[in-house]
């Protein structure tokens, strides 16, 4: 491993950034090269704008598409999409991909799924690269040691046309998780604890690097979950240094290098981790053993608390703005101050989304569901067709259906509800997704963000329950 010290010590972010600079303008703007680009059915307009301007895709082989936002998860038949505007997005993506030569994992292909699940699964996401997508949760991919961030639709058009983006270099922030995580604690609990600490705007303008023994301990799935929600802490991107777990995860995936190319790639990847002595603009440290299963109680991901605690009392808030904000959140959520979180009844459960729909997430939920019965309507939406197949091969689908859960097809589903899969006004949902915003899962719906294990625990008990009491030791 390349060791550099002192003045030359660099962060992983700095190393990746430097290698992708096309032009540094004197005004501080950088034209940054984009190695790989992901598209989904919501990207349809960007394709259309490009065509309308008579422009061509510079490198169709660097873009990969899959429909996820608008496709219903109870069918794989596009012709049954009722809303013509939704159908246009799904069908339009496939048409544009076909006419431009962009690779698509379309409905009916086992490789189709949520774009942030598909990228790592196919080996499109690799350490050291730059990757963008017209979706804020693109921060997910940084879990494999790359620089990945979400962009707007105009920027998607720009990437298609030029394979580059104008960027001001973000600052770097390191979040350390010191010490081992306790029994039953997942990547989801860690990121909710981090956001509760730094706030929803805590990482604004920064790339977050997660480090420390608590992070190394996480599986790749757990790291993907963690980096996924960097944006909910305001971060431009999230990243974790690649290690042997990363390389083992990537090896053999379809778009990953093979043979001698793999050896050369691996030698390069091993130079990526932040050098000893490199400095960050900000640094925050949390104690790993102190992190408990988390539940959000409000309407921002920063409104998160351990399941062992109670809904906060706005009267004790630090200032008037916070008091008003908390009171408004509690009114929307229909919660009384001081209510123990473990006494809040839940109406419905959603396990899925780019945050928590991978095989490990489904295994953990199944470990809780096994031999128990769902007390409330509960959905399991796997992140890709491949994950669905794998879960079925492991018998997880049987565990879920025997416990009364609904086993569905891959897609974004109730995380964002763009495909019409939403809750009813007033409904309280334990959700493994990433946003508890007002109306996110449907008008008037009350979303509580939790891990898959905690969501399954809510399903089988009908309220929030400390999953550590239900998990097999």
């Amino acid at each position, binding site marked *: 491993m390349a060791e550099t010290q002192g003045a030359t010590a660099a962060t992983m972010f700095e190393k990746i950034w430097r*290698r992708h600079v*096309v*032009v540094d*303008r004197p*005004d*501080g*703007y950088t*034209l940054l*090269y984009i190695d790989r680009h992901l598209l989904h059915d*919501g990207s349809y307009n960007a394709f*259309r*704008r490009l065509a*309308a*301007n008579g*422009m061509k895709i510079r490198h169709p082989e660097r873009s990969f598409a899959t429909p996820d936002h608008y496709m219903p998860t109870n069918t794989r038949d596009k012709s049954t999409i009722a809303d013509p*505007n939704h159908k*246009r*997005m799904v069908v339009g993506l496939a048409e544009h991909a076909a006419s431009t030569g962009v690779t698509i994992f379309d409905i009916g292909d086992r490789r189709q799924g949520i774009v942030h699940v598909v990228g790592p699964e196919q080996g499109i996401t*690799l350490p050291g*690269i730059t990757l963008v997508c*017209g*979706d*804020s949760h693109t921060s997910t991919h940084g879990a494999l040691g790359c620089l990945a961030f*979400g*962009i*707007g*639709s*105009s*920027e998607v*058009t*720009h990437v298609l*046309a*030029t394979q*580059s983006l*104008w960027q*001001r270099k*973000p600052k770097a922030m390191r979040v350390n998780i010191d010490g081992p995580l306790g029994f039953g604690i997942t990547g989801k609990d860690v990121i909710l604890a981090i956001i509760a600490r730094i706030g*929803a*705007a805590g990482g*604004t*303008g920064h790339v977050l690097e997660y480090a420390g023994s608590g992070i190394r301990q996480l599986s790749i799935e757990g790291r993907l979950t963690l980096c996924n929600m960097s*944006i*909910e802490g*305001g971060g431009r991107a999230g990243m974790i240094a690649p290690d042997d777990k990363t390389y083992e995860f990537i090896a053999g995936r379809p778009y990953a290098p093979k043979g001698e*190319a793999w050896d*050369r*790639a691996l030698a*390069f990847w091993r130079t990526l981790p932040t050098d000893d002595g490199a400095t960050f603009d900000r640094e925050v440290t949390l104690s790993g053993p102190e992190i408990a299963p988390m539940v959000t109680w409000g309407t*921002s991901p920063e409104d998160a608390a351990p399941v062992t605690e109670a809904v906060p009392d706005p009267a004790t808030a630090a200032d008037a*703005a916070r008091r008003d*904000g908390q009171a*408004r959140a509690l009114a929307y959520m229909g919660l009384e101050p001081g209510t123990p979180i473990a006494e809040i009844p839940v109406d419905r459960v959603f396990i899925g989304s780019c945050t928590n729909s991978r095989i490990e997430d489904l295994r953990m939920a199944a470990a809780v569901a096994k031999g128990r019965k769902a007390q409330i309507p509960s959905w399991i939406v796997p992140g890709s067709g491949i994950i669905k197949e794998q879960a079925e091969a492991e018998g997880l689908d049987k565990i879920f259906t025997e416990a009364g859960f609904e086993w569905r097809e891959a897609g974004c589903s109730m995380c*964002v509800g*763009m495909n019409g899969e939403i809750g009813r006004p007033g409904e309280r949902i334990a959700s493994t997704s990433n*946003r508890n*915003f*007002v*109306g*996110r899962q449907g*008008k008037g719906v009350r979303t509580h963000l939790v891990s898959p294990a905690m969501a399954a625990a809510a399903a089988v008990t009908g309220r929030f329950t400390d999953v550590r009491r239900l998990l097999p030791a």
Partner: protein
Amino acid sequence: MSTEHKQQSRPFDRLTATAVAIDQPNVDTDQIIPARFLALPRAEQVSHLFNDVRYREDGSPREGFALNAPTAKGAQILIAERNFGCGSSREHAVTVLVDNGFRVFIAPSFGDIFHNNSFQNGALPIRLPAERIREMLDHLARRPDASITVDLESQTVTGPDNWTQSFEIDGFRKQCLLQGTDDISLTLTYADAIAAHERRAAAECDWL
């Protein structure tokens, strides 16, 4: 060509207008335009700005929401608390504001992607100190018809009490806004540099 297809932005230099105050932190893009309207043609999205906080179930306007006040008509400036436009990358959050007449957003901080998307659509996001924002929000609560002037060339905001506050903006973004630059055309002037980078990267990282 319809605005939907246009990559070039309308230039921006100076604006004197009334403002709407959204006195809340963490206003996310799901609130600015809920997901269920995103597949509609752009022209049909206009009436859904802040849909679910602005209207009741029956479609009648919710009293007390800033956009429903009579003084909100004609406003071109939006003032909000910290982290405005956080959340989803949906560019519709900017275009629906622009299509409702807003050209300037002023807040202590913005969601990064919303901030970038603003420039792509000829809108100017301005970060001002939280105390100054508080002052403006309090003033607007008393005098909602007050005018505010934003001058991009001199990088200043002049408030209703005639105070003037300067703001920071990236030189690159400033030039693009002043000229209404089409950023793809600008980037293509660097085509040789992009090609050179690709040759260099192909040699260094032949595994990609």
